[in-house]
């Protein structure tokens, strides 16, 4: 029993229709969104890729329509009819002209595809960076992100702030990508395709965001047990917002005497072995810099909102949020947890 032909053809048409609806729903996206779609670019390289992808979709779509229609036609037209007719159809062994044609045409299509592809490869990879570009070094860790701003002398973690760029006076951000351990990959779809972070092999990429806001993404190369929660948050700030943020990050750690108890817990319970708080004795580098922990919206590399309860629970047992995270539970007592949380809450 075969499905009626109209249903088979209808299935294909329906798929194409859905695809068109889906794509068009993103064609006019204007800014950041919580679903990091590659069809909603707001940064120059991602926009270039998007245009290329639409062109490729048109070509491959046309090929699909032609060949699938042919195949559908063949299925319908050359069905075996009644069972009494036993004669075999004419045996055709080949045709030089036809075979030549369907070799030459694909070659031409490949030439066109390749030339357009190569143009975009060179345009993105070999683009010269303007003087005004911001340099950021990204260091991938299991399972968090470290960001260093060499010119500004900043070391921050997990939430990347970059300045909004302008089409006429671009201020792109140039990222140098390193890794402290395994392979990672930096993927924020609305800003650019992904580039990997590979130890002993520095990579580069650049973004040129034209709309401000918070863009999300995540690590895209399996790096271990908590690869899934190595989330990315890129804040594209207006110039004023960015300047304010840089100013704040440049300050040394807050030294509030009322939380001295908590600070002592921090320093004696081995926290400082892994974490840095600028201006104190804590200079550990294995874990994220905590100097301005409270300036971040999230903890655990984007996984949980930065609230007192979450912070306390995270310190008590990182595994409860991120099983397999490399931060150990330090077996602090309840009062120690309260004190150190209060201390950390002063690190704005």
């Amino acid at each position, binding site marked *: *029993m075969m*499905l009626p032909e109209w249903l088979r053809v209808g299935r294909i048409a329906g798929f194409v229709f859905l695809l068109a609806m*889906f794509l068009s729903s993103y064609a006019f996206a204007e800014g950041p969104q919580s*679903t*990091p779609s*590659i069809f909603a670019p707001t940064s120059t390289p991602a926009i270039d*890729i998007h245009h290329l*992808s639409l062109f490729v979709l048109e070509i*491959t779509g046309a*090929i*699909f329509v032609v*060949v*699938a229609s*042919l*195949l559908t036609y*063949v*299925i319908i037209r*050359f069905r*075996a009819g009644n069972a009494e007719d036993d004669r*075999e*159809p*004419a*045996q*055709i*062994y*080949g*045709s030089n002209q036809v*075979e030549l044609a*369907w070799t030459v045409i*694909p*070659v031409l299509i*490949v030439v066109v*595809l*390749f030339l357009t*592809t190569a143009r975009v*490869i060179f345009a993105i*990879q070999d683009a010269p960076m303007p003087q005004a570009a911001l340099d950021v070094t990204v260091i991938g860790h299991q399972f968090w992100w470290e960001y260093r701003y060499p010119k500004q002398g900043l070391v921050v973690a997990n939430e990347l702030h970059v300045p909004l760029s302008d089409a006429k006076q671009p201020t792109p951000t140039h990222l140098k*990508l390193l890794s402290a*351990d*395994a*392979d990672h990959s930096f*993927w924020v779809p609305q800003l650019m*395709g*992904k*580039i*990997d972070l*590979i*130890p*002993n*092999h520095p*990579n*580069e990429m650049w973004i040129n965001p034209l709309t401000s806001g918070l863009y999300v*993404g*995540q690590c*895209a*190369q*399996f790096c271990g*047990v908590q690869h*899934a929660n190595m989330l990315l948050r890129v804040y594209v700030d207006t110039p004023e917002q960015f300047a304010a943020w840089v100013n704040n990050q440049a300050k040394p750690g807050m030294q509030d005497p009322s939380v001295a108890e908590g600070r002592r817990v921090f320093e004696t319970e081995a926290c400082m072995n892994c974490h840095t708080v600028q201006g104190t004795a804590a200079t550990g580098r294995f874990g994220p810099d905590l100097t301005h922990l409270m300036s971040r919206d999230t903890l655990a590399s984007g996984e949980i909102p930065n609230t007192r309860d979450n912070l306390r629970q995270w310190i008590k047992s990182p595994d409860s949020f991120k*099983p397999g995270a490399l931060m150990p539970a330090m077996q602090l007592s309840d009062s120690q947890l309260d004190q150190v949380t209060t201390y950390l809450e002063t690190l704005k």
Partner: protein
Amino acid sequence: MADRTLPIDGSLDLTPPREGESTWLETLHSWVITVDHKKLGLMYMMLAIFFLLVGGGEVLFIRIQLAVPNNHFISPQVFNRLFTMHGTTMVFLVGMPLVFAWANYMIPLQIGARDMAFPRLNAFSFWLTAFGALFLYFSFLGGAGLYGVGNAPDVTWWAYAPLTARAFSPGNATDYWALALLVTGFGTLGGAINIIATALSMRCKGMTLMRMPLFTWLLVVDSGLLLITITPLTAAQVMLMLDRYLGSHFFDTQAGGQAYLWMHFFWIFGHPEVYVLVFPAFAIASEVIPVFSRKAIFGYPAMVAASVGIAFVSLGVWAHHMFTVGMTSAGNAFFALSTMLVGIPTGIKIFNWVATMWGGKIRFATPMLFCTAFLFQFLTAGLTGIMLSVAPWNWQLHGSYFVIAHFHYILVGAIVFNVFAGIYYWFPKATGRMMNETLGKWHFWLFFIGFHVTFDTMHFLGFEGMPRWIYTYPADRGWDHLNLVVSIGGLIQGVAVLIFAYNLISSLLKGTIAGNDPWDAWTLEWSTASPPPAYNFATDPVVHSRRPLWDVKHPEDPDWKYE
């Protein structure tokens, strides 16, 4: 289907059946010690089907975990082991054994030979594969034991350095991966050598290379490709084990080594490997489509040339898996071009199959249903492959669910569909009984629907930025609905496969008797009994064309007049 053929004189088994049945122990013993290509082919097939079910079971857990956001059905450790084992199992314990299942069973029958060139090597290769599989699955019992999924490999089936270094993978999970695959790799090498030697040295009289069935051709080209495909993986795995146990520094970035060296070596294996896996699907299509369209294959020489062409070009595209690792723009451009080029001979094959159907009288029995779906799906998969070859777009799509959708479109949509076609087609030859057509059609439609529900949807998850290898995802990403749909499609496919398994077993026990040639086909295997006697052919066949049985059935219009 009534048997309307005239068998080639002397090729029927005329000896009377043996008196008295064997005990089950004797039967088991005869299978364990066999060097007969048919038994070994069936054992490879049983191994492949068994691990298809196991790998499918693994993915069922994965899809339940991913059906809703922030799920806690399984832990990340278990999830990572399951998807690593799913990939490793499907490639090495299903896909590769299938190559040898088809080749070992069919090639001697199609070329009119008594057995493979090296029957004992054949058995040795099978048992290496089987023991390698056992070793890999023994890992579930290692470490913390079964319910924590033990010490099963958890580094993805690519096992990228430096994650596999002692420092980042301290237990034995990676060792199980490398050692098990080293063992099966030697089995693979033996099998490939055997296939080539058989096809070159054991053909019956009159069967020049250009008269071999395309099925045989494709598996021979496949084996040639295998010789230089599996061996780089062997080399890389030896290097990995040297790093882990003798302190060498092949992939040790602290000592100046490069992690991407592993990537290059792995993909120099990994890309041609996927062609190795897909060639049997091409082989099956090249037999089933002509027979069910009642026409000779269109453009036999071009099909041979395209197959060889694909094998060669596939050796030069590997770094399209590495567009994101930071190669130069020239390097990226080169691999984009070479990858696009491989689409040309592949497209030629699709066109030839369609042209074979053109002007034919197509009978949509179950094998042909699967092959027709294969054509649509392989076309689509090829086109998403072209999309992935566009390096800048690849920077978005790599490592996302779009890639998973693309390669499952090939692995399931092309390979598994055609494996089902091949089983329905040749089951009568191997067992002497037909499979049930009604169950076959239920199997087909359910599997087709489930396949498309899962894998069409999955492309969109990639567009929406969902990366691979994640055991869960946040609720606000907007991926929840599509993931649920993908999971439901998986369940539908599972049901379809169960119907297939039931059909297989019940047909074995009480299917209608098939006769020599139930499909009215044209290659030599249909000239002998079903199942074939141990010696295959009572007298060595002599052939004069590509379709010896067509010549017998149509003496007034034989093929050799036109070839």
